[in-house]
């Protein structure tokens, strides 16, 4: 679980926060806080599909699965399991 979380955090910090992660909590909303925009969400999807060898279906593209580090981690855990 922690390894998943760290990989997601690293991707978000490196690609959207440019290594400045002081305000990024595990439950911070990416969209509400302007950390990731709508195109960025899809870049995140591209990353997790590639990194974890999964396919994110259209109906799974919802904030509950993708809008924070905790949400992505929980979603990935359920997919991988």
């Amino acid at each position: 679980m922690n390894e998943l979380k760290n990989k997601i955090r690293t991707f978000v910090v490196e690609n959207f926060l440019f290594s400045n992660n002081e305000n990024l909590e595990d439950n911070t909303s990416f969209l509400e806080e302007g950390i990731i925009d709508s195109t960025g969400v899809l870049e995140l999807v591209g990353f997790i599909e590639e990194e974890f060898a999964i396919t994110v279906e259209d109906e799974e593209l919802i904030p509950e699965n993708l809008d924070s580090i905790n949400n992505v981690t929980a979603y990935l855990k359920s997919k991988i399991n």
Partner: protein
Amino acid sequence: MCAPKNLTNIKICKRCILPVTFPGIKFDDQGICNHCRRQESTAAKAADRKEKYRKRLDQLVKEIENKAPVYDAIMAYSGGKDSSYTLKLIKERYNLRLLALTFDNHFVSPEAMKNIKKVTNVLGIDHICFRPPWQFAKALFILTAREDIFPAPALLRASAICTACIGIVKSLVLKTALEMSIPFVAFGWSPGQAPIQSAILKTNRALIRQNQSALFNAYPTEIKSKMDQYLIPDVYYEKYKDRFPYNIHPLAFFHYDEEHIKNELDELGWQNPCDTDINSSNCLLNAFANYCHLERHQFHPYVWEMANMVRQGEVNRDQAIEKIYTEQNLNMVNYAKKMLEI
């Protein structure tokens, strides 16, 4: 407002052209950036992936065509090269019933307007043009020329002025699609503009709602009061919950080559405008938008798109360097400043 620094001698990635000024970039000892390295594994699978998307769109069109009441697809149509070619591609390949919508931001080049008329006439496509009042457009562009009101990730891919314009375009086409029950919303994004994962995507109303709210909240009160009417009304999320369309941007997975595209467009009488800057084939505000972005961020707002296209082999690296590292046309910059009274 001072001129952007000269970027001609700046350090850039030896593979993709991203500059050292691009936020968060890292170079390895071979001068290759972290974005190129990260995408090495995906690049190898790109051709298969594109083929998969082409088949998926073929299949979707079969499932959806002629089921909608009037139109099968609405196209966000700027009159530029990429959206004109996309219109031609989906008309000729799929023979869809199309509606083209142009957002006239008061800076659409007269030559682009002629192209819009020619292309829609030759292809036999219904066309509507939406123009907000000049006072609103002027206030919006003055604001975004002076301030970066949008989240930082959006400004990696486009200037604040373009982001403001595109935000309205996306909302208008979606709103029209919902009202008219149109199952496809098409865009002419180049292969470098948006990730392929978004090239065929069923729009999700929860995500759309959250995006619209983030866009709306970025604006100050005086803009919000007018902007509200261009975004998706709250009642639509429930009223039209079964009508949320597929977004498609076919250039992400069809063959993309600028010369081929221009030859195809020649057949329609489309002509490359002489009155726009090197990065646009429709907008007279673009050079100024780039200028403002360069001044504030020290990287070109098209560099992410161009770097992606160089990596994917869609654009020659030297051509990309010319597009990105040529100084903005000062006549065009001054034209926009005069219009906006900045």
